[in-house]
């Protein structure tokens, strides 16, 4: 099939999800507010002083990102449930990997948007003065998000037809992302504190991204095939 057609189909799937969310203002706003609620809880619960806050920052950010994206993932396939479920998508004549990439792109965009808003907010809320590192922090966050959303969309597809799928999705995603989470937390800690290791954790992050994103479309096609 010509590449152009595949690209157009990928774009269209992503477009549909993003436009849908935009029109209903559903996922984005609930993700953002959820993230803020989590931050507030952490702030109240831990009430860290300034030095502690710098130490806890990577963990805070990653935990919030993880739970927030979990919330977004629960909705990735919700639009498909409206009238006939995934069925309609699966009748498309483009290869199924394309559907995966479209879904992934849409989810990635939303998650990244939330992260971009979340990061400065966290710095303000926890009163941590690392604004100079902001671009680098964003970089690490994005790197981790690539793999996280890739794996997440795959798992969401897997559990889409399952019973009580939200619980299941969360149950499966958390243990699988644990290595990614460790690498992300450590890399960010390395950024904030030069005495800590950075390079090898970054490399690990990249490896995870590549592996998940290479395997996922293939696994997706497999899973949804009847």
């Amino acid at each position, binding site marked *: 099939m010509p590449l152009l057609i595949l690209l157009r189909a990928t774009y269209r799937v992503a477009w549909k999800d993003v436009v*849908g969310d935009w029109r209903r203002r559903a996922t984005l706003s609930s993700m953002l507010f959820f993230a803020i609620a989590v931050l507030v809880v952490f702030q109240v619960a831990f009430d860290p002083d300034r030095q502690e806050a710098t130490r806890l920052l990577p963990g805070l950010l990653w935990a919030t990102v993880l739970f927030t994206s979990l919330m977004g993932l629960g909705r990735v396939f919700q639009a498909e449930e409206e*009238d*006939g479920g995934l069925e309609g998508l699966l009748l498309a004549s483009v290869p199924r990997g394309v559907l995966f990439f479209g879904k992934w792109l849409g989810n990635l965009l939303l998650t990244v948007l939330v992260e971009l808003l979340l990061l400065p907010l966290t710095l303000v809320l926890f009163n941590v003065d690392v604004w100079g590192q902001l671009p680098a922090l964003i970089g690490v966050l994005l790197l981790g998000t690539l793999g996280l959303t890739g794996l997440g969309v795959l798992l969401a597809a897997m559990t889409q037809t399952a019973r009580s799928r939200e619980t299941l999705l969360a149950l499966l995603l958390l243990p699988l992302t644990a290595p990614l989470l460790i690498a992300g937390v450590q890399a960010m800690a390395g950024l904030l504190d030069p005495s800590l290791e950075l390079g090898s954790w970054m490399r690990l992050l990249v490896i995870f991204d590549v592996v998940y994103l290479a395997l996922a479309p293939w696994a997706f096609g497999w899973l949804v095939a009847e």
Partner: protein
Amino acid sequence: MALLTVQDLHHAFGRHRVLNGVELSMEAGECAVLLGSNGSGKSTLLALLSTRLRVQKGHYQLAGYSAAQQGEEIRHRLLFVGHHTHLYGHLTPLENLRFFADLHGLPPQPATLAAAVAAVGLQRFSEQPVRWFSAGMRKRLALARLLLFQPLLLLLDEPYSALDVQGVAWLNASLDRFLQQGGMVLMASHDPERLESLPHRLLRLQRGQLSDGREECPC
């Protein structure tokens, strides 16, 4: 060889066996109506032919492509409109059709899409999200996909339900044109009289097998 051939097709959902050796073959330009009581397996058969369900046992070929290996080629050549409309509530009619076209690799022609929306009488609503459409309006839009391309095979599951009198007339005219151009139609319906003057063959699904529909009582 016939354009569509189904041989000894079986299907069971877990412990419940629904199809039990279905045989069917269709030629270009042919229209067949599937009859059968509620739960007899009509929708299941259509789902198998649309490749939505995996062939468990038996063979199904469309234009020489086999469902077991070449699902994509088959999907490329068919259109399925079932009980569900597969429309996205937050998109407008035009956007819904464009979505369908892109996912079927059809060339993007805004004029064709607009014409299809107009043909089913929805131009007044072309800027509104589909979510609040009435049952018949949704059905019309789902059927409008037929105007976007000429598939080999058209699978319809109770296409007349929810359509008003004009809707039925429009559908029959479109089916007529489609058949003339060599398409094949297989539809499940409880009310074959709605086809009116459209030439068609009746098939009855009973105990998991297909037989000629006219032979038996009209039940």
